[in-house]
């Protein structure tokens, strides 16, 4: 589909492939519908002397900072890192719900609105079980650190940036969910939360990839190279800062680690850290590269047209 349509609505209406995908996703959501409020057993407590996150996914474990901690400290960090991870999910879902609710049954998004109902319903339930986990086993949800200030300043790209951010967030989280759902070192309650989320998110990610690719294909025909590079730079910064959010000082404080802000600085400045960032974002980076949203690596400036030839 190469023609430029005057509105997002017409772009979506004329794409029969997109409509087929939407119908399949609606069918799957209806088929797999479950009651999350009765799905989990929620034991009174979870064991403290073990990992709550897969150690290979813990943010400090790919750096020189990891080996400075004892096994007991790592167990405590893994507990609070998991509370931070699920807290980030709660805050990320709040943004997702806000943005999808703002678009459902509007002129631009008439076509996917039937599926938006499923996304809203499922995400509300995910938010509930992540919040429940945090409150039951951590006694708190860590505060959000995000504030909406200036973005790249390209109003035509608003829809694209919103769905890109949501997709990046969902893909990043899913890397953890998929791995931890199968990690037998983790408590069954932890595995279950991750398994249930992974199951639903695979549909949301399929939708996100479709709409992001379509909106970008449209923008390629509307924006100049400078604007496209601005979007690329912004999304790379967004991806890197999303991973930085996994390294929250308050989790080190709650794990009893001295000087928690300095620990975060050491992790983020460690030569091993960029490799961790690329590893947990591997799927998103591949998607962004395959759709030509990214013209260069995650830590590189966008490639100019002259350099690419």
């Amino acid at each position, binding site marked *: 589909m190469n023609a430029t349509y005057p509105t997002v609505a017409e772009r979506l209406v004329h794409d029969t492939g997109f409509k087929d995908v939407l119908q399949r996703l609606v069918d799957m959501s209806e088929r797999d519908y479950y009651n999350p409020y009765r799905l989990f057993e929620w034991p009174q407590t979870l064991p403290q002397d073990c990992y709550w996150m897969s150690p290979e996914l813990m943010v400090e474990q790919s750096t020189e900072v990891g080996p400075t901690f004892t096994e007991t400290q790592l167990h405590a960090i893994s507990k609070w890192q998991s509370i931070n991870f699920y807290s980030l999910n709660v805050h990320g879902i709040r943004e997702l719900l806000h943005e999808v609710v703002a678009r459902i049954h509007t002129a631009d998004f008439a076509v996917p609105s039937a599926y938006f109902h499923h996304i809203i319903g499922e995400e509300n339930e995910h938010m509930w079980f992540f919040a429940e986990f945090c409150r039951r086993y951590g006694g708190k949800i860590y505060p959000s650190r995000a504030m909406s200030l200036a973005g790249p300043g390209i109003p035509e790209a608003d829809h694209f940036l919103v769905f890109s951010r949501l997709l990046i967030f969902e893909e990043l989280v899913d890397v953890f969910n998929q791995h931890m759902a199968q990690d037998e070192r983790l408590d069954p309650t932890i595995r279950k939360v991750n398994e249930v989320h992974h199951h639903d998110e695979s549909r949301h990610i399929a939708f996100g990839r479709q709409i992001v690719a379509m909106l970008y294909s449209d923008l390629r025909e509307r924006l100049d190279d400078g604007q496209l590079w601005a979007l690329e730079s912004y999304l790379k910064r967004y991806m890197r800062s999303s991973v930085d959010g996994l390294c929250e000082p*308050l989790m080190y404080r709650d794990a009893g680690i001295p000087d928690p802000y300095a620990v975060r600085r050491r992790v983020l400045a460690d030569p091993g850290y960029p490799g961790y960032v690329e590893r947990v974002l591997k799927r998103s980076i591949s998607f962004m590269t395959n759709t030509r949203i990214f013209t260069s690596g995650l830590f590189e400036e966008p490639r100019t047209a002259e350099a690419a030839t």
Partner: protein
Amino acid sequence: MSGQAGFGIVADYLQAKYRQVQDLQPDEPGAALAPDYDLIDSRVLDSLAFVEFILLVEEHSGREISIDTVSREDFRTVESIRKRFFDGP
């Protein structure tokens, strides 16, 4: 660290970001960041840099900051940041 020493670190960070936004080279002289300069409209603080900044303020003010209890106006200028996070007990 908190109080005026902590505020100095936050002010230095903002001065460095201000130079970046103005695209000044390290050896290039530039104006000092005025206490009432709009940090948000000028993009000295943007959405993606905000998390890093809020952690810096938290560390050097000694106060845990929940986003639910602050507004963007608290971060509008160097002066509003000083008043909101570094004045008083």
